[in-house]
């Protein structure tokens, strides 16, 4: 291993000579700067190689030819090597992005950059407490210089505040160091830790001062206003260095002094870190200014990392490996993501302090596709989505905490993470979509010809550093995942597919569609052996559905950039949910699905608010699910069934799934997400993706349903939740003018029936549930596909702007007709089977009131279904839609296939019911059975085949009579009606479509006042208010910040005394 002293020598020499070198030109001197930083990186890599692969142990280096205790020691171990690499990596990225300001400012800027990074590296390497101080000061003073180097007003203001806080911290540190020397007799860290004098009594206080200084430098809540101001105002590169490199160095300093800390100290670190995490994120939620928001996120993340290291020591979460994995993973995630985001914020002109009016640039438009991918990766990583390091770290952390039953900590961490996800993704959405959407401000969903197309912001060279950070995140995430033995290729398939399809994103759409289908097929083939009966059923809906929608995606020409990769990734993620064998593997697949579907929603036109609430609820549900999974040992392991240990955690799983399924109360994300995404993506979300939640609920209930606490009551409550979902989904649907909103609410209602049926919890109920799920997939697919065609042809989603399309789009009409007959449960189509099964099992179970309400709900469904078909296809056409044609083949072919399937399973119910009953029969005693073609329940019977025959026969009879009696009618145009004794002159007025159910609204509208939305809005307001209150602390007055620092230290001291 190279002696790191040479690096210091080289850095200093470079820095010292820089003013001379600068005489040769700024290019040369900057090259020297980059070379110096790169040298650190190269050496750090060589250390890592030696330590991890060549098997060399950690090594200490003396200085001046002496060793400790006389001389200062430097140590190179794994954490040091990684820290050095992080610092130089961030430094190089930031320095690259700062090329212009560095070239324009005096050479002092470049000089302080080198010394700053050298100082941070010194903090990492040194094992001497006073030397640590020296390097802290090098780093701080260089930082003060760097903050001011390009002379921004705001940065100067912030820099002064930064100095005040830094000065207080230095004083604290010096006092701590000298008393540590006094009580231990050593300045060398390892020797001081071995000396007895530091533990108990005055030594504890000495260590406290040391610790307090480091904690203050780590920017704890509330003593961090100075740092946030600096993040906000300095050059983004400097912010990146502060947030990434400096935090790494300081965290490693904290890590270093950990051996000196007692329990009370550790508790203080943990408490302070967690409080910072929570408060930082809450304050960030209110931030509109991007840079400041990233600042809040930074302090929060660093607080969490610090807390994790302390918690491991306090609770014994898993030792060194655990800390490396979790704290290291979180830190790596944070520093790469934050570096990338800070630099990205400057590249897109979100850097409000930037000179010369560039601040408005962001308002002009959306990111270019490449930029959007980079931004997406960075933001997703920051939020802790897979496959990035933060995801693995979060899982491991929560799992360990659950092992210690620290539920409050889990709640705190996840709650704050959710808030963070909210504001980070809100920003992502804003920059990806642009401030002004493509649609005019007027009518929702209409494309006005003159509306401005948003400009694509091209990042150019500014994207390089963020892209590199993103790439590093991907690589490290994959490596970490592999390390945690999530190595099943099928689990990674979604990412592979997305990457490949993104790579050929410019290719024509049909090629990508075919590739997506092939990917789904290949996945199914590879996974076939691992699919049991239940999983096969769901594979049809999930993989088959995904492939079908990929096919349908061809209905619009062009490359449709971004759609196919996301659709394919989401499809394969659904597949991997089916094949996951471990809890982590499952959760990985689940979050992958959440991520892919979020991006899919985001791709829609006016989807900003919808996508945000989709992902926030998605993550919230996922967090509940995660806690449930880790709280039940052995959950999701193959063949696990109810163990006595599983109790209330199952409720968490169920609650998480209910959120995902959009059960009433947690449904507010649903209509927006389904309505605003691309039309075929909506169909995919509604008919395929929602079944993933059903699948997991089936598995979870199968395993743990019998050991639920208060089993009967719980199930009854679950049933009522499902029932309420069904009823209110239908009620909401009838008042929508937007066709996709109607379908969205309808989906919610249909899933409600599935939940209700699952809650019945016997063979009949579960048969019903699976049958309903499969049927919903069939007819909701038909509806969404047909509607996609309609929307494409007429260019609007408002039903009252359509009409009379039956003549133009007869096939779509037929498809919708079949679908709504099936959906409403009118015999002889298979939908009736669902109704029959549902009522039979409800009555058999004795849930009579539920049955009546379900009957009411299904009657209400008629309303919106009739409105759907009537206002679109019947009535009077719009003159502007005279040239509308039938939907493209890409849509009609799948619809045709689905119609055939629908007829087949309607006429021969056993086709669908036999497999279902085989699956369900493994878990329950039989209630239903087949006698020939008749399905028999204890209460009644239903013969699908016979009823189909009778209906067809009767229908044919009537039809023949009609034909036979038809006396050469004169077929007239659609407008040819007699209306108040005249032919209508302006046909629009005669199409009864808008506010179709006005009387119903009058009678029952009070039920649909969107209380759920209001509740969650109130929750949001509450979080907002708390965040607003917290950030009132940050008055902007540097002196108040100083007061905060001192008060923080005092409070910590008193708390520690109390412990």
């Amino acid at each position: 291993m190279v002696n790191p002293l040479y690096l210091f020598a080289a850095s200093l020499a470079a820095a010292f000579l820089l003013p001379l070198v600068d005489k040769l030109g700024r290019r040369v001197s900057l090259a020297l700067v980059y070379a110096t930083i790169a040298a650190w990186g190269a050496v750090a890599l060589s250390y890592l190689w030696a330590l991890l692969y060549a098997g060399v142990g950690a090594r200490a280096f003396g200085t001046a030819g002496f060793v400790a205790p006389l001389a200062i020691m430097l140590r190179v171990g794994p954490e040091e090597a990684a820290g050095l690499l992080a610092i130089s990596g961030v430094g190089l990225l930031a320095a690259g992005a700062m090329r212009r300001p560095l070239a324009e400012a005096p050479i002092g800027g470049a000089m302080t950059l080198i010394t700053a990074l050298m100082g941070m590296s010194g903090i990492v390497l040194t094992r001497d407490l006073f030397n640590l101080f020296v390097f802290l000061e090098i780093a701080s003073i260089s930082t003060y210089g760097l903050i001011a180097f390009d002379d921004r007003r705001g940065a100067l203001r912030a820099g002064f505040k930064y100095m005040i806080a830094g000065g207080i911290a230095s004083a604290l540190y010096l006092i701590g160091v000298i008393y540590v020397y006094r009580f231990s007799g050593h300045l060398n860290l390892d020797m001081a830790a071995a000396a007895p004098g530091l533990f108990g009594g005055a030594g504890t206080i000495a260590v406290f001062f040391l610790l307090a200084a480091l904690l203050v430098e780590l920017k704890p809540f509330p003593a961090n206003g100075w740092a946030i101001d600096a993040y906000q105002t300095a050059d983004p590169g400097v912010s990146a260095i502060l947030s990434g490199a400096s935090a790494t160095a300081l965290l490693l300093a904290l890590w270093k002094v950990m051996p000196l800390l007692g329990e009370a100290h550790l508790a203080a670190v943990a408490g302070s870190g967690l409080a910072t995490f929570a408060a930082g994120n809450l304050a960030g939620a209110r931030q509109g200014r991007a840079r400041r928001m990233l600042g809040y996120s930074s302090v929060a993340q660093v607080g969490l990392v610090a807390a994790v290291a302390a918690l491991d020591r306090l609770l014994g979460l898993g030792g060194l490996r655990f800390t490396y994995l979790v704290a290291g993973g979180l830190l790596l995630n944070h520093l790469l993501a934050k570096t990338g985001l800070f630099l990205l914020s400057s590249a897109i002109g979100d850097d409000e302090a930037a000179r010369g009016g560039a601040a408005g640039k962001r308002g002009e438009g959306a990111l270019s596709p490449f930029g959007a991918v980079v931004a997406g990766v960075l933001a997703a990583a920051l939020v802790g989505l897979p496959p990035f390091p933060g995801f693995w770290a979060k899982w491991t952390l929560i799992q360990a905490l659950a092992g210690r039953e620290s539920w409050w900590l889990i709640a705190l961490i996840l709650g704050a993470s959710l808030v963070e996800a909210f504001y980070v993704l809100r920003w992502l959405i804003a920059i990806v979509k642009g401030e002004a959407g493509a649609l005019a401000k007027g009518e929702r969903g209409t494309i006005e010809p003159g509306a401005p197309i948003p400009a694509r912001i091209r990042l150019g060279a500014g994207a390089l550093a963020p892209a590199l950070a993103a790439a590093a995140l991907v690589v490290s995430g994959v490596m970490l995942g592999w390390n945690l033995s999530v190595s099943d290729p099928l689990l990674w398939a979604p990412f592979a597919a997305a990457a490949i399809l993104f790579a050929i994103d410019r290719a024509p759409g049909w090629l990508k569609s075919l590739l997506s289908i092939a990917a789904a097929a290949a996945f199914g083939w590879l996974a076939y052996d691992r699919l049991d009966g239940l999983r096969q059923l769901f594979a049809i809906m999930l993989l088959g559905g995904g492939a079908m929608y990929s096919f349908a995606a061809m209905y619009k020409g062009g490359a449709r950039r971004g759609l196919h990769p996301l659709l394919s990734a989401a499809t394969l993620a659904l597949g991997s949910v089916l094949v996951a064998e471990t809890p982590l593997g499952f959760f990985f697949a689940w979050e992958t699905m959440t991520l892919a579907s979020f991006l899919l929603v985001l791709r829609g036109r006016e989807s900003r608010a919808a996508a945000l609430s989709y992902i926030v609820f998605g993550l919230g549900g996922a967090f509940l699910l995660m806690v449930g999974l880790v709280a039940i040992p052995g959950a999701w392991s193959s063949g696990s069934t109810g163990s006595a240990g599983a109790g209330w955690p199952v409720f968490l799983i169920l609650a998480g799934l209910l959120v995902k399924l959009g059960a009433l109360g947690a449904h507010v994300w649903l209509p927006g997400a389904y309505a605003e995404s691309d039309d075929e993506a909506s169909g995919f979300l509604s008919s395929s993706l929602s079944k993933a939640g059903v699948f997991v609920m089936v598995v979870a209930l199968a395993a743990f349903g019998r050991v639920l606490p208060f089993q009967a009551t719980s199930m009854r409550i679950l049933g009522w939740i499902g029932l309420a979902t069904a009823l209110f989904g239908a009620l909401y649907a009838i008042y929508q003018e937007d066709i996709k909103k109607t379908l969205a609410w309808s989906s919610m209602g249909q899933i409600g029936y599935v939940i209700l049926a699952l809650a019945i919890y016997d063979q009949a109920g579960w048969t019903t549930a699976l049958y309903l799920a499969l049927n919903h997939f069939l007819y909701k697919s038909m509806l969404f596909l047909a509607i996609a065609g309609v929307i494409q042809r007429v260019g609007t989603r408002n039903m009252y702007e359509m009409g009379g399309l039956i003549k133009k789009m007869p096939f779509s009409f037929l498809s919708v007709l079949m679908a709504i007959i099936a959906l409403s449960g009118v015999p002889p189509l298979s939908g009736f089977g669902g109704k029959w099964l549902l009522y039979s099992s409800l009555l058999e179970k004795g849930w009579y009131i539920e049955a009546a309400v379900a009957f009411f709900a299904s009657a209400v469904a008629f309303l919106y279904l009739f409105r759907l078909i009537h206002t679109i296809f019947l009535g009077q056409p719009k003159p502007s839609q005279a040239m509308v044609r039938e939907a493209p083949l890409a849509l009609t072919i799948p619809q045709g296939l689905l119609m055939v399937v629908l007829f087949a399973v309607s006429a021969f119910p056993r086709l669908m019911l036999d497999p279902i009953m085989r699956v369900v029969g493994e878990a329950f005693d039989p209630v239903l059975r087949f006698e020939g073609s008749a399905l028999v329940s204890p209460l009644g019977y239903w013969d699908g085949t016979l009823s189909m025959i009778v209906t067809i026969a009767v229908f044919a009879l009537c039809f023949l009579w009609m034909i036979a009696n038809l006396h050469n009618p004169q077929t007239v145009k659609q407008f040819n009606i007699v209306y108040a004794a005249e032919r209508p002159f302006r046909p629009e007025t005669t199409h009864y479509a808008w506010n179709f159910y006005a009387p119903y609204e009058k009678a029952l509208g009070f039920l649909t006042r969107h209380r759920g939305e209001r509740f969650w809005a109130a929750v949001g307001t509450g979080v907002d208010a708390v965040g607003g209150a917290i950030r009132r602390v940050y008055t902007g007055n540097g002196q108040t910040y100083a007061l905060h620092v001192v008060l923080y230290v005092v409070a910590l001291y008193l708390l520690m005394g109390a412990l």
Partner: protein
Amino acid sequence: MMRKVLVTLAILGFALALLPLAYRAGVQDRPGALAAGYLDDAPRELGAANVVTAIVVSYRGFDTLGEVAVLFAATAGVGAMLTKKRLGPDAASGRGTPATEVLRTATGLLTGLLVMFGVYIFTHGHLTPGGGFQGGVVIATAILLNLMSRPESRLSHGLMTGIESLSGAAYVALGLLGAIFALGFLDPRILPIGRVGSLLSAGSVPLIYSVIGLKVGAELSGILEALKGDRE
């Protein structure tokens, strides 16, 4: 009012932490093992009469290197911050108040003397109290006098930069020589240890302290120059 209460509380709380600590530390009655080790070994190992210097330059020479870096970074920061361009056109201060003739004459006389005194201090740092930092300040004082006596004159910026850069490089180079010819970076034993108490003793300690002195002097002068507003 609120602020006053909080400040008082903060100070009282801080006192509650700091004063007991200071009291409990008390007064040592003899040096600890580490200090005793330095006192006993420094003259023998390094030939330095001034143990503090031995520690500062050699045992903890790495600290001193860092210290120089701190000063360097501060100078660079100040220099980058306070340029004429950034301070505005009427930047330079003290213009128009010409120094008295006495000061001018005295400056001429004193400059040389002060520089020589400064050099003396850092070359004898290993023998007597004082060393590179103190000597450097003395040199800076000489330059300060020049700044005051001739407000319209500019320091030869190039010369200062050159001295600063080269002395810094020389410091690093001496450190490297220690790594090559002795046991480690900044090891002063590349030259003979000599007899304790003579000028040519303690290996390269006097040399190192000299370049530190030059470097510190140049940097402090740079800070003064920047504060005066003469930086381009």
